[in-house]
């Protein structure tokens, strides 16, 4: 019961944060709402037995990626969003599309709502559901070694790409 309550609280924070992201007009507000969503999601992960994922969610998402977002917003001194009507399609097709999509998925989930209920205590007791760092690490370095290595290459490429893209254009050199 306590856990269900926790789930509902975290879930409510998540949804509120997500909606706030949409409603707010200044990007830094949206970014802060997103951080809140992520922190609350970390709580949900803890309820699901994904201890390590929760920690990494906070460290990587909230602590690194979102800092980067905030940094860029501050760097570019982004102002409040202006309202332009650049796209009719997004309103005419997109929003109804999303509505339909959401309704369909919700309907499917309700149709198949015989999925099991879980209690965090049981999840933590069972080594096949408790995402302890050691277990996850073993999986990463055995079964998922190849994807792991490939992602590290991906990160390297991303770093180089980011450096190249964000570099100030050096006109002097280009003329040579």
């Amino acid at each position, binding site marked *: 019961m306590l856990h269900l309550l926790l789930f509902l609280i975290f879930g409510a924070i998540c949804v509120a944060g997500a909606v706030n992201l949409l409603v707010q007009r200044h990007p830094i507000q949206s970014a802060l709402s997103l951080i809140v969503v992520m922190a609350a999601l970390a709580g949900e992960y803890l309820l699901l037995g994904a201890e390590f994922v929760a920690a990494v969610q906070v460290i990587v998402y909230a602590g690194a990626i979102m800092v980067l977002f905030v940094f860029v917003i501050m760097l570019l001194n982004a102002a409040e969003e202006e309202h332009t009507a650049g796209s009719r399609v997004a309103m005419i097709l997109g929003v109804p599309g*999303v509505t339909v999509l959401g309704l369909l998925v919700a309907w499917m989930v309700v149709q198949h709502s015989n999925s099991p209920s879980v209690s965090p205590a049981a999840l933590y007791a069972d080594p096949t559901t408790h995402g302890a760092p050691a277990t996850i690490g073993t999986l990463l370095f055995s079964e*998922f070694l190849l994807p792991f290595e490939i992602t590290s290459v991906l990160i390297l490429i991303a770093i180089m790409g*980011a450096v190249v893209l964000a570099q100030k254009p050096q006109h002097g050199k280009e003329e040579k």
Partner: protein
Amino acid sequence: MIPLSYYLVLSAILFACGVTGFLIKRNIITIFMSIELMLNGVNLSFVAFAAQWHALSGQVFVFFVMVVAAAEAAVGLAIIISVYRTRETLNVDRVNLLKL
């Protein structure tokens, strides 16, 4: 006891919020954040399914998603910076030269 379908519903709500954000927001950074929101929603369903099927690979997958998200954020924000340098705007409606 929490039914797993609750998690799925929450995940779907977050995802839908992300898509909606993509559609209605004009600021390119906010749009980018909407993508992160979608990824987070998907991550939640991954973890939920991992719990349901007793397969930790679902959680491992979340790591890969996070790594990709981090890489994407780095490159994406770099692109945003260079777009801002040339166009001096963050409004996607004003960055629409690439068309026929």
